[in-house]
Every structure is written in structure tokens, then in C-alpha cells.
């Protein structure tokens, strides 16, 4: 087991300064903001009802035109409208799943790291085991066999496979602050463990957890899209980015717009999350600081 990275607390002001001068931070934040706004105001932005079959006999499978900038699908539904509403479902599922995963993962990681001993060993073996499972395959098995799976259950399942990374990270950070003077002092003053955890440990480990969560949002969006592409994520007629692609994939040679546009939407959203996460990580990550100062060699051999 590799030891925890030496933790150097970065002053908040310098974090802010570094973020302010990082283009990835601004690009990621603004793109994500715009997409969230689109999802929130889908009702006003979408030119058509996303599930309305406009004219099944004459308007189906139309290439992009002025009336339908992204074309129509095989059921004569407007792809742009479905894309806009798809943002709602894709974002809701991934934000909710990541929020659950982050809360749970942070708790497990902080408790394991702070208490140590048997509890730590058991929890971390569990995390090790869970993270070496071919997740997607298992998810497919679970979801595909239960025919009518709700959005809530889908979200919980995705959260269930996304919390390992967060908990491992938080544990490492907790180990790094566990024996710090201010925590020893709190313990000496007779503060109960749960209070030390809540008041002193958690605020110090929340930074890395946020980075992990931001990066996780991107991954979860990809996961949801993948499941929907396989036809087992979000079920028809509800529009999600993955399911629009799935409906057009069989005829990708002539109905290319059904593949191109939703894929671009996924790409842009995931890119925004990853850019934001990378910028946050670089601003908070002490390793990067060490590397740029050049005063110590930090090898990560995990």
C-alpha cells in the first residue's frame, strides 16, 4: 500500500488566483453553465414537443433544414428538441448519481482513514475489490435483465459504481491530516471522534473530493450515454443523448445527423466537466506544486 502523498495546504487565495488565470476553468465553467441553463429552460427553448411525431408519413428521417436544424428521426420527431430535453435527463441522472456517490464515498473514506485499524482494512479491501470489477459488464447484466427500470433506480445503480474513487482519495487525504497538530489538540481537549471528523477532517479533505466529483460527472454522463446506446439506459420514448444515437445507429450511413449531433452534445458536456476538473485539480493538487518548485521528488507508485 503506497503511503499518502505529503499534503501541503495551499492558501485559498492562491487557489483562486490560479483558477482565475486558467483558461480551462473558465471554458469548463461557462460551457457547463450554458448547458445547465439549456436543460433548465428546455420548455422555452425547444421548438417542438420532443416526443411529438410531427408527420410520420412525410416528415420522418429528414436531413437538417431550416425548420429542423438537426433533422428529424425515423418517427418524425425534431432532433434539436429531443437534444434539448435530453440535456435535462442526462444532467439530472449524472448530477444526482455523483452527489450520492460523493457523499457516500467521502463518508467511507474519511471514516476509514480517521479510525484506521480493522475498519480501514475491511473498507479498503472492499473498495479494492469493487474497483477491479468490470463495472460496465455487471451494470449491463443487472439493468438489461430487469426490463422496466426507472430513472431513480438507474441513478442509484450508477452511484453504486462511482463512489470508489472518491472514497480512496478522501481516505488518503484524511491519513495526511489525521496526525496534524490541530487534530491532536482537538483530541486532547476531549472532542468526540464524530465531531473531529465533521469539524476538522472533512473541511480539509473536501477539495480533492470536489475535484474527483467534477471528473466523475463526465464519466457518469459517458456511462449513462453508453447504457442508453445499448438500449438499456433511459427507455423510449424519453429522449436522452445516448438513446437518440441508438435509434439512428442502425442506419448511420444515411441518417448521420442522428449520430453526429447528440454525440457532439455529450462530447462538449463531458469535455467541460473534465476541463473544469483538471483546472481545479491543478489549482489544489500539492503534487503539482512540489513538481513546479522542484524541491522534492514525489513518485506515485500506486
Amino acid at each position: 500500500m503506497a503511503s499518502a502523498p505529503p499534503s501541503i495546504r495551499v492558501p485559498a487565495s492562491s487557489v483562486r488566483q490560479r483558477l482565475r488565470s486558467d483558461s480551462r476553468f473558465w471554458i469548463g465553467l461557462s460551457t457547463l453553465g450554458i448547458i445547465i441553463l439549456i436543460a433548465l429552460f428546455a420548455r422555452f427553448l425547444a421548438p417542438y414537443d420532443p416526443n411529438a411525431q410531427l408527420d410520420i408519413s412525410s416528415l420522418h428521417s429528414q436531413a437538417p433544414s431550416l425548420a429542423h436544424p438537426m433533422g428529424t428521426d425515423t418517427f418524425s420527431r425534431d432532433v434539436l428538441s429531443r437534444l434539448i430535453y435530453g440535456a435535462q435527463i442526462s444532467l439530472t441522472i449524472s448530477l444526482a448519481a455523483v452527489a450520492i456517490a460523493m457523499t457516500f464515498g467521502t463518508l467511507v473514506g474519511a471514516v476509514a482513514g480517521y479510525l484506521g485499524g480493522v475498519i480501514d482494512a475491511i473498507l479498503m479491501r472492499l473498495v479494492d475489490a469493487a474497483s477491479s470489477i468490470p463495472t460496465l459488464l455487471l451494470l449491463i447484466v443487472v439493468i438489461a435483465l430487469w426490463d422496466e427500470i426507472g430513472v431513480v433506480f438507474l441513478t442509484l445503480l450508477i452511484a453504486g459504481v462511482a463512489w470508489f474513487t472518491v472514497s480512496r482519495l478522501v481516505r488518503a487525504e484524511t491519513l495526511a491530516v489525521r496526525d496534524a497538530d490541530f487534530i491532536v489538540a482537538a483530541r486532547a481537549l476531549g472532542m468526540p471522534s464524530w465531531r473531529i471528523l465533521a469539524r476538522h477532517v472533512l473541511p480539509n479533505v473536501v477539495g480533492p473530493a470536489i475535484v474527483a466529483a467534477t471528473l466523475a460527472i463526465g464519466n457518469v454522463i459517458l456511462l449513462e450515454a453508453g447504457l442508453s446506446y445499448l438500449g438499456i439506459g433511459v427507455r423510449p420514448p424519453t429522449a436522452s443523448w445516448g438513446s437518440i444515437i441508438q435509434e439512428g445507429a442502425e442506419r448511420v450511413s444515411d441518417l448521420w445527423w442522428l449520430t453526429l449531433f447528440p454525440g457532439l452534445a455529450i462530447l462538449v458536456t463531458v469535455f467541460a466537466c473534465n476541463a473544469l476538473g483538471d483546472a481545479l485539480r491543478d489549482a489544489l493538487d500539492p503534487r503539482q506544486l512540489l513538481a513546479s518548485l522542484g524541491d522534492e521528488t514525489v513518485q506515485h507508485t500506486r
Partner: protein
Amino acid sequence: MRRYLAARLLQALGVVVFVTTLSFVVVHLAPGDPISAALQNPNVTEEVRQQWRASYGLDKPIAEQYVLWLSNVARGKLGFSITHRRPVGDVLAMALPRTLLLCGLALLLSFVIGIGIGLLQAERPHGPRDRWLGRVLLVLYSVPDFWLALLALLLFAYRFPLFPPGGMTDPVTYPYLSNGEQFVDRVKHLVLPVVTLALLSSAGVARFQRAALLAVLPSDWMRTAIAKGLSWRTAVRRHAFRNALLPTITLFGLSLPVFASGAIFIEKVFTWPGMGLLTVNAIAARDYPLVTAGVLVMSVIVVTGALLADIAVAAADPRIRLS
């Protein structure tokens, strides 16, 4: 070292047992059963269905089925596929080499591309080349696998028909080709899936390799190398590169689950008849024996890969096996 090996092996075995038990339970608890899915003819009476179920042992309680299945697996028998009407072992023996071929080639290519890009970036950290390559990698890192595969299909198989749109061999002409032509045909079918899969995973490799290089650049021995007169570039390529390879070995193991899942999408898009496509189709048909065996084989591969990577790192780095 021996203790480390034993502990790691035990853990790997635990994971495999856990995953397969989970998939067995999930598969058998799910609504619907393979007999109803296989016999959709309404003229088939319930009595016949029951006979079928009994012949596959599906009428027994789950616990009993599980024990039976485990003891069969231990003896190397994986059961009888309901949709293929053949022993599961035979079906998997057809599909597994295809997936290994696809993934093996892609894995190799992705490490060559990824390590190369990481090296190019780390030679001048934070310079313009590093930044631009970083952005390209971030895009590649954010692309949905199945979408990139579909675009490749659209562009290079349909718009510009340079490569066949899927499958392993040409369905019509293949049997009539000479040996050399058959080989060319196979290679042509491999190009698109391999390159797509390799590109997708090379982004992760490159990011990792760059970080590993950056971590060793400020070392004392780098300063020594420069002081004895090596150019920066030679020092990076000869000294830093070797020292930064160690973390990349770990990545070899860590990237296997990614490959297993990536291969599912790639195989589906390019109709590559490997493990991924087989398992997805088996799930749809509720072919219980095939699904559980498929999950078993896939997790054994993933876990073995991670195990081998850990052992390789432990062999190279004494600090790990001692702690």
C-alpha cells in the same frame, strides 16, 4: 515477496468469486426466463416448457442451482448455451480469441501512441506543444467510445469506403480467396476497430505518462545528467523516461477494465463477434449459462491483468512488496 504474492492472489480470487456469484444471483433473480424467451411459439404447451426447464435444471431452487453450477465450473464445465444449442465452453472458445486479438492489438497500439505523446509533452512542460497536445487529449478523453466508433464507420466505411463496415471477414468472397488475400481481408476488417479502441485509451495513457515524467523531472539524478553535459532532451529520453515507465506498468493493469467495457461498444458497432457482442446478445436472449460464464471469463481476464501488473511493479520496486 512470497507473502505479498499470496495475499494478492487470494484477493484476486475473492474478486472473481464475488463478481460471478453476484452475476449468477442477479441473472437468476431477474424476471423472465430463457425457456420462455427461446420458445415463443404459442402452440408450445406449458408442459413442454416445464420439461425444458427441468432438462436445464432451471426448476431447482436458486441455491441448489448455484452449488451445481459452482461444482461444474470447478470441473471446467460451464454449462450448455440455450440459444446456441452448444456447450458454453465451445461458444466462448470461438469468441474469446477474437476479443483477445482485438484488445491485444489495440492495447499495444494505445501504449505506443500514449507513451509517445506523454514524452513529447513532458519534454517542454507547460510549453505550447504541451498545452495543445493536452487539449487534444482532453477531447479524446471525453469522447463517447461508441460515438467515435460510429463516426469512424460513417467516414471510413460508408462515405469513403476504404474499409469494410464490420465483421471479421468478407461474408461473400472470403471462402474463395487465396491464403494471402484472406490475410489481407482479415487485416482490413481489423483496422477500424483496433485504431478506434487504441485512440480512445491512448488519451489516458498519455496523461498518465506525462504526469509520471513530470514527477521525476526535478530529481537529483536529472540534475547530474545535465551537469555531466547531456542535452535536456537526451536526459529526458534516456533517464527520466526509464524511471517514469514504472507507473505506466501499473496502468497496463488498470486499463484492462476500461478495455473490457470499451470492447463491448466497439464490438457492437463493428459487429465484431467477440466476447462483448456475445454477452450483450446473450443477455437479451436470457441465455443464463452463457451470461454467467461470459461475466466469469471477463472478470478473470480483468483481475488477472491487474494481478500481473501489480506483480510486475512489485518485482521492479522493492518498496511495494516490503510494505
